[in-house]
């Protein structure tokens, strides 16, 4: 499985990566992007199965990234997870309409992220 982590904080990406490596989720490669535009380029160039994205980011935010992903048939098998400080009802409803599998609100403990990753990985269709 190939995972793409999208967050404008390099430390948040590193923390998520550390949790991924601590889990028993089988991972071949972890890619990173600092915003939605970078993420789209990586999605174009690589066969990614699991997308973990923040919402509030410069250049292109996570909501716009997910809208573009939802419009393309190419990504219909991509499992999508939001990891964001925005826990609002409006954002969660929007996420549900964009085929987001899990919504994890920051702050979170490593164990909660482990559970989300394990659940999301079970839905990945390689």
């Amino acid at each position, binding site marked *: 499985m190939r995972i793409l982590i999208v967050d404008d904080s390099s430390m948040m990406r590193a923390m998520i990566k*550390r949790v991924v490596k*601590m*889990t*028993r989720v089988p991972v071949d490669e972890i890619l990173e992007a600092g915003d939605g535009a970078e993420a789209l380029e990586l999605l174009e160039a690589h066969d990614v199965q699991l997308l973990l994205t923040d919402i509030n980011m410069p250049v292109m935010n996570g909501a716009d990234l997910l809208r573009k992903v939802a419009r393309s048939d190419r990504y219909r098998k991509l499992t999508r997870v939001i990891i964001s400080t925005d826990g609002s009802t409006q954002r969660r409803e929007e996420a549900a309409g964009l085929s987001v599998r899990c919504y994890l609100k920051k702050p979170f*403990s*490593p*164990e909660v992220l*482990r559970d989300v990753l394990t659940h999301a990985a079970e839905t990945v269709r390689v």
Partner: protein
Amino acid sequence: MSGSMQLPAMWRDDEQAPNRLVIGIGEMVVTTERGSRISTHAVGSCIAVCICDPHAGVAGMLHFLLPEASINPDRASAHPAAFADTGIPLLFQKAYGLGLVKQRAVVKLVGGADMAQTSGAFNTGRRNLLAARNLLWRNGVFITAEDVGGTGARTVHMAVDDGRLQVLSGHSQKEL
């Protein structure tokens, strides 16, 4: 727990119970003795850190009292198990020495009660719990289960074979 309730043999608090290892406050034990159990009492604001690798048949328990050895270096050097930052690494080192593998480790935390019910500056239970979580994260270990917080002291029994816990507090009991 009702006084008339019959507990499984593993948990029975009597002389017929299987091999028992009892640790006190500020103590720890690691064992490979199959069929035995580890117990500790009076886990209030302290934390019982319970680890087990069922595949390797290794289990251990630490009953630490305070988060940081720097609070009392002399005591820490004589009793490293009394502090989270000296006791937790020691617990894992001993368990690794007996064959525990980090990736298989089942790790459970019990305790961290607010015994003074202050929730204020001296909330030792909360500080202990956060210190334990911090040390486990730093060492790349996930927590499998917790029974923490509240305001009452707990008794913990751990089955060495599979790491199952029985936690008693007042009139309640639960399995973790």
